[in-house]
Every structure is written in C-alpha cells, then in structure tokens.
C-alpha cells in the first residue's frame, strides 16, 4: 500500500521520463491487441467462411484423393455408399465428384477442375440451385475470381472438353448459369460447378463421387470403408498454420516496441536508484527492511506498465472498437492470396488475448524493474544515507 502510493507520486513527479516509457509501453499494448485481434478476426472469418462454402462439418475423402495432386483425380472416384444417398440423407451428406477438364473461353485453352454437386444441396453456400434452370447447354456456376480470370460472364457459353472414365475425350457446350462471390478461393479458382448427375453422365461414372461433405450436425461420423473421414480441424490446418506463421512474423513489430519500453523502464530504474540513495538510506533508517525498499522501487517501475495499460485503454479502446466495426480493408483479394480471406477483416479481441497481453506487459516490466532494484539490498545504508555510493 505504502509502495503503491509512493510509486504513483514518484512516477507522476518524474514527468516526461515516466511518460516516455509509459507511452511506448501503451503503444506496445495496443499494437499487440491490434495485431493479434486482426489475426484472430481473420482466423475466425476464414474458418467460418470455409465451413460455410467448402468443408461443412467435415468431409469423407476417397482414400486416393489428394487435392494438391490433380493426377490423383483419375483414380479417386468410387460408388457413393448408400449411407450418403437418398432423399432422407440430403440434409446431412453432399457428395462431390471431381475431375480434370479443359475449357476454351475466348478460344484460349484453360485447364480446370470440374466439380459435380447436387443442385438441391443446402449444406454449402454455393448457389447450386442456379444449376436447375432451363438451359440448352450444360449449366455451370463459377466464382468471381474464375470469372475474372476467364473473362466469362453470366450467360456466356464456352466449350468444355473432358476425358471419361475410359480416357476417351468428349466435348460439349456449357453456359455460365451464375457467378457467385466468395472469400474462399478453393471453391472458386480454376473450377466450375455443375450438377453431379450431369457430370456423372459426362464422365461415365454413374453414382460415383470423390468426396462427401457432411453436415455440422453429424457429431460422430462412422468409419466408411474406402473413404477416409477428415474432420474440420484437419481440413482447416492450412489456414490455421498460415495464420500461425503470420502471427510469429508480425510479433517482431511489437517485440521491438516492447524491448524499447522495457529498456526505458530499466534505464529509469538504474538512474533513480543511483540518484535516490539518500532516500533509500532514509527508508532503512526508518526501519524498512531491504526487501521492502526493493519492493518500493520494483512497484514503482512496474507501475509504468499499469499506467501504460490505463493510457492504452484511454486511446486504444476507442481505436480498437472503431476498427472492430469498420474492419481492415485488405489490399489483396482472397484469390490472389490463395487462402480464405475476406475483403474486410474485423479484428476480434478475446478477453483471453487482452488478459495475456496485459500480463505480458506487467510481468516483463516488473522483471526489468526488479533486476536493478536488487542492488539496493547490497547497499551500505550508512553510505546511502549520505548519498556517497558511486
């Protein structure tokens, strides 16, 4: 109690020096919240969008399927088990058939992935109902990134060429029945979506699929022979690890600020212990134990962090609140970036993040305040009283 009162008085009395350290520490505090809040916001948004658009509550994969290797597609299709079929299972399972193909927009050849999906599905956000319209050509839907890359617009017709299950080439006209906008590039870039039944006919793979998206409501997916279940965590691991990498990368910025702030506090402590020997000697003469005196100086140094948190709250809360409303406009679009990312990211600051950041600042400041203060217990009080220690 004595220490806290003294610390506040001494700090406020020290003026500019105190505020310099406090300002740097408060910037550190808010910067950490901002960076982590941004990454957390991105993380949440990306995971949410990916679940809504692509992965649902998890996916069963054909055991040969590897999304990073298009050559596996030739072998990764088989009969869809009856468990995943039929009217009764519609809300729970959504099979997808995937195959390589080529399109010729504006006469230019382009390799793509074609995906077949039930037009009546409601598990994913994909506007598959557009595939149910009445068209002469085969209706497909594509994402905005794909539309931009191929210069295809709604209603445009182009040629699709594919190989069926036997390796025989065939071709037909497709029409763009709709263009959807998504933050998830993995359902957009270089791919077209069509009705799964149509696609099964085209490639002669009746009743076959490559993967099956399941509803988030299915909590305990059964093992199915020939299919490997991937839960959402493993399907999200790419984005999670990317964001983790970003987190580590961006922490350098605030580590520099933190180091600056701590250095300033350390310096202040060393100086004030040297300059206030007489005061230290007086405390000892008044009957304070050395521990108590070390405590006074440690609390005083640590108080920088408390002031920093208060100051940070003063300018930081409005800033953070404003940013969580307006979000950060992202300079790159998701398809350029290659991972799910919204155009605006709304930072999310959890209570955990705030507490950890607060503790980080307070604890590190306390440590750098304590280290120089230990010198006090080695001081000779009779010399300290006269201010004679060099």
């Amino acid at each position, binding site marked *: *109690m*004595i220490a806290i009162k*003294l610390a506040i*008085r*001494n700090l406020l*009395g020290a003026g500019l020096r105190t505020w310099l350290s406090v300002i740097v520490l408060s910037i550190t505090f808010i910067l950490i919240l901002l960076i982590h809040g941004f990454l957390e916001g991105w993380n949440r948004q990306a995971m949410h969008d990916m679940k809504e658009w692509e992965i649902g509550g998890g996916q069963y994969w054909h055991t040969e399927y590897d999304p990073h290797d298009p050559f596996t597609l030739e072998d990764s299709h088989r009969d869809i088990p009856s468990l995943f079929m039929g009217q009764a299972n519609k809300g729970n399972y959504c099979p997808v058939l995937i195959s390589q193909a080529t399109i010729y927009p504006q006469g230019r050849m382009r390799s793509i992935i074609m995906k077949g999906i039930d037009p009546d599905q409601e598990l994913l956000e994909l506007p598959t109902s557009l595939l149910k319209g009445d068209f002469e050509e085969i209706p497909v839907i594509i994402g905005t990134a794909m539309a931009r890359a191929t210069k295809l617009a709604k209603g445009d017709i182009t040629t699709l060429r594919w190989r069926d299950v036997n390796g025989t080439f065939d071709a037909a006209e497709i029409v763009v029945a709709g263009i959807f906008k998504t933050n998830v590039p993995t359902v957009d870039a270089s791919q077209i979506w069509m009705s799964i039944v149509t696609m099964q006919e085209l490639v002669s793979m009746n009743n076959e699929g490559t993967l099956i998206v399941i509803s988030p409501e299915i909590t305990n997916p059964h093992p199915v022979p020939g299919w490997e279940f991937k839960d959402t965590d493993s399907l999200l691991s790419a984005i999670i690890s990317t964001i983790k990498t970003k987190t580590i990368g961006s922490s350098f910025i605030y580590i520099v600020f933190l180091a600056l702030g701590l250095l300033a506090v350390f310096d202040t402590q060393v100086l004030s212990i040297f300059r206030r020997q*007489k*005061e230290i*000697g*007086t405390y*000892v*003469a*008044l*009957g*304070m*134990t*050395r521990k108590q005196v070390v405590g006074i100086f440690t609390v005083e140094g640590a108080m920088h962090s408390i002031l920093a948190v208060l100051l940070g709250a003063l300018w930081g809360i409005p800033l953070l609140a404003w940013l969580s409303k307006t979000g950060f406009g992202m300079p790159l679009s998701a398809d350029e970036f290659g991972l799910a990312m919204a155009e605006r990211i709304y930072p999310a600051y959890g209570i955990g993040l705030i507490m950890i950041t607060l503790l980080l600042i307070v604890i590190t400041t306390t440590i750098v305040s304590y280290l120089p203060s230990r010198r006090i217990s080695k001081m000779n*009080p*009779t010399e300290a*009283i006269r201010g004679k220690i060099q």
Partner: protein
Amino acid sequence: MDNSKIINISGLVKQFPMGNNNFTALHNINLAFIKGEFCGVVGPSGSGKTTLLNIIGLLDNPTSGNADVLGHNANDLSVKEAAMIRRKHMGFIFQTFNLLPVYTVFENIEFPLLLLKMSKNERDKAVMDALEWVGLTDKVKSKPAQLSGGECQRVAIARAMVKRPDLVLADEPTANLDAEHSHNILQTMEKLNRELQTTFLFATHDEKVIQYLRRKITLDDGTVAGDITTSK
C-alpha cells in the same frame, strides 16, 4: 542489564578497510546511556561521531567489542531484526533532513506509523500531536520543497518523534540551519525530551547545540577524551 541503561557500549572498536590496511575509526569505546538523557557526542571532524551513532542506530556493526542497544546486542542481530528495532524504537534526524519530496508534511510524518501498521484514526491523531509539538499545524499539506530549512528539520523531528521512540539519534541536525532556526529546533527537542522522556543522542561540533546538552562526550581520534554531565 540495568533497566534504565538503554545503551551500553564496552570495548567497542570499529575499523574500516583502507587499501591493504584497516583504518581504526573507534578505539576501545566504553559508554553507557540511561533513559531520558539529552546528550551529545562532540569533537572535530573525522573523530568518529557519525561512526558511533551508526553503530548505536544498528546501521553498522562493531568490528569488535559490544554494543547493547535497547536490550539487544548489536552483534547478534540480523539486518532484518535491526530494522525492526529501528522501526519500533528509534528515530533519526539527519543533517540534510532527508524528507520524501513527493510526500506532504503530513504524509512524511505519517510514514513511520504506516510501517507500524497503525490504524488511520491512531495515525491521524499521532501526526496532529507531532505537528503541534513542532508548531507546524498550518503546513500539513505543504511539500518539503515549499518549506524553509528550519521548517524541514522540524518536520524531520516530528517524523522521528511521532511514534514516541525510546531513542532519537541526531547527526549534525543544525549544520544546514541558521542560528535562529537552530535554537528553535533545539528548544523543541529539549521540550520533547522532558515531556516524553525520550533519550536524545546528538553528534555535533556546533556550539549552539553543545550549549543545550546536559551531557557532552568528547571524541578525539576515535577515543573518548571527555564525558561531562552538567545538571540543568
């Protein structure tokens, strides 16, 4: 120990390391003080006055010999135990006042009571009493920087006296004061000595102080060269 003997020093030697040798600041000192004395160690600069007061104040240890202070042998005390004895039973007055600049007059005087964990009510009352003793009731809220040297030293006296200690040690308390202030604070201390039976021990070479002392112990080159008690 004789109950009234609050300090008993025998065969005290204090040496300081000086290069390869030791410098002997106090040679074989034998002294006793009883409760309620108003006495001082006098002598030229470098004669060992401060050294002796520091040992009595348990801020420094004897090299050899014994110093019994308030019933404790200085040689047997840990640093922490010494601090506790100072906290409860001793007051210090310094040449340079040594007030806490960030605290008000009131808070400076209250400080020793906070260490004793006294209640707010008790503290308020004790501080007001002490302010009255030194005649500073109108400066409660001032900061030391706003006070004259004499007023600062009176605050320091109040701080030393507020817990009604058994012993007050005052090292050159008038060295930074003019004659008028010196007499003023000495009269204050003399009055407190009479009213509260507090033992005062000065270290000084100031004639103004010496004339108030009822007992003068003269140190010369680290030895007791005289010990005269005058009845007043």
